[in-house]
């Protein structure tokens, strides 16, 4: 068996008496498209926060390409190829779209410590940023400030910032939240275009888009993995229907 892109085992996190992640284990192969579903409060985002290092799990391990990362700081996990988008937009609203992506590029470059050269003259960085914006269909909006863009454009920018880092493992936290059906279709087309060397784990409520995207699905409920398997296995499983589809 080849090494997993991400392997979580026995992960548990408590907030006081509330167990938000209960003995979660999952194995995600390189290049896999994994969907995580579950009702509100199932602990999906909390799981993401533990994978990224925003939260420390109480017990359990997280391995990325075989390396134990659960003790690493967030930025060290990022340096190893982990990237994410946020359910609640987390952008730099007063800056241009290009500047947002440049900040993302700088995160992985030593030049971020450079206190002397003028950033505006670093056309190499801005060219790369422009490429990333083009990739998500924002090629002509780079000079606008985030505060002047629409919600749909901001969702795309979130994705551009994550993709600009050329991640190996990409976590997408409800990337379609709050979008119109047309916008959803536009963005889900972008997911399909992400190369296969990127492993993607997505939390999403829009079943049409999510099911079309995912190969493997994990259902979380009260912090626990209830069902896991291929798309058809999970969809036909009675427990999924009971918990999630409400039938």
């Amino acid at each position, binding site marked *: 068996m080849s090494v997993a892109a991400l392997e979580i085992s026995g992960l548990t996190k408590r907030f006081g008496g509330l167990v938000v992640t209960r003995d979660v284990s999952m194995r995600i192969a390189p290049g896999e498209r994994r969907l995580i579903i579950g009702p509100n409060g199932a602990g999906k985002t909390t799981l993401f926060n533990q994978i990224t290092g925003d939260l420390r799990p109480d017990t359990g391990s997280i391995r990325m390409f075989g390396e134990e990362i659960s003790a690493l700081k967030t930025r060290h996990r990022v340096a190893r190829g982990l990237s994410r988008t946020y359910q609640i937009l987390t952008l730099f609203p007063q800056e241009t779209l290009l500047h947002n992506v440049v*900040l993302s590029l700088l995160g992985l470059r030593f030049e971020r410590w450079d206190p*002397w050269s003028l950033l505006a003259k670093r056309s190499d960085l801005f060219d790369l940023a422009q490429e990333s914006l083009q990739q998500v269909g924002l090629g002509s909006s780079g000079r606008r400030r985030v505060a002047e863009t629409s919600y749909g454009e901001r969702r795309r920018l979130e994705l551009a910032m994550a993709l600009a880092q050329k991640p190996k493992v990409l976590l997408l936290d409800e990337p379609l939240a709050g979008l119109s059906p047309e916008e959803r279709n536009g963005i889900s087309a972008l997911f399909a275009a992400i190369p296969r060397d990127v492993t993607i784990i997505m939390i999403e409520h829009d079943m049409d888009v999510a099911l079309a995207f995912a190969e493997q699905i994990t259902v979380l409920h009260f912090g626990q993995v209830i069902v896991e398997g291929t798309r058809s296995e999970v969809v036909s499983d009675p427990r999924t229907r009971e918990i999630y589809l409400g039938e």
Partner: protein
Amino acid sequence: MSRTGLAFLLGLGAAALVPFILNDFFTNLASQIICYALFAVSLNLIVGYGGMTSLGHAAYFGIAAYAVTWCVTVAGMDQLSAAICALLLATATAAVFGVLALRASGLSFLMITLALGQIVWGVAYRWVGLTQGETGMRFPARPQPLGFNIEGARSFYFFSLIIFAVSLYFVWRVVNSPFGAALRGSKDQPRRMRMLGHNVWMIRWIAFVMSGFWAAVAGLLFVYFQKFVSPYVVSLQQSAEVLLMSILGGASTLAGPVVGAVVVTLVKNVASTYVERWNALLGLIFIVAVMFMPHGLVPGCQALWARMRRPRPAKLAGPPGQGQAPSAEHAS
């Protein structure tokens, strides 16, 4: 040349004319303003760009002032070595205090910087053997940079102006560098910055140390100007005033703290000869500024200027309420 560069040179040119237009009293006042302007610019690096509001910034300003005086008068060092030692000591103090204060952020950060500043004040006030306490220490004579005599009001003003211009240029480079971008990013979205791979703590600490260094340069200017140092330079009043300058003029702009320093120093020195309660006047100015220009005088005037220059057809031709659209969008 960029508009910023042009504005910088024009401002510098105008400032260079001051001693030719005004008498020695006002030239000295202008030197004092320059010193405080640099102090406020240094603080603004962390307050405006880094989002770290400090109430103990007088510590680095004052430590440099005390250290250079001590090195010259007690240790008998030459001026240049004394200045270098003073800058090193103040910057090293900022490095240590930064480690302590940056364990927290926001209000807790403010309280820690306040406490650390008060410790320095306590040392200056109580350790009479070192600092001569309340009596203060005299600084014998101004240095002679490159052999120039800067004892006169006019020559000292030009000396200060050059130091200030060079310092401001350095700070401008930092603010517009990749590091500056990372610093501003860490102010707005620290969590996101970490997720992008940035070391937010280190970014803040470096900015804090830089800020301490430029405050120390301002402290040197101060003691060269006053030729005297007392616990007042490290007092909370001093830290609060420089914070007021920075916020009043407009934190997160380079010109803001400079304007703030001009206003506050003028009120302190000029208005105080006519108005006994100049502190109240300063408070009043601050309240009015906060009410009408909450982002500070410089951004406020920029917005006002933009509004005055904008032609009005949109208001005449467009449907009612259209003029509100940009601000509504801004809020989201």
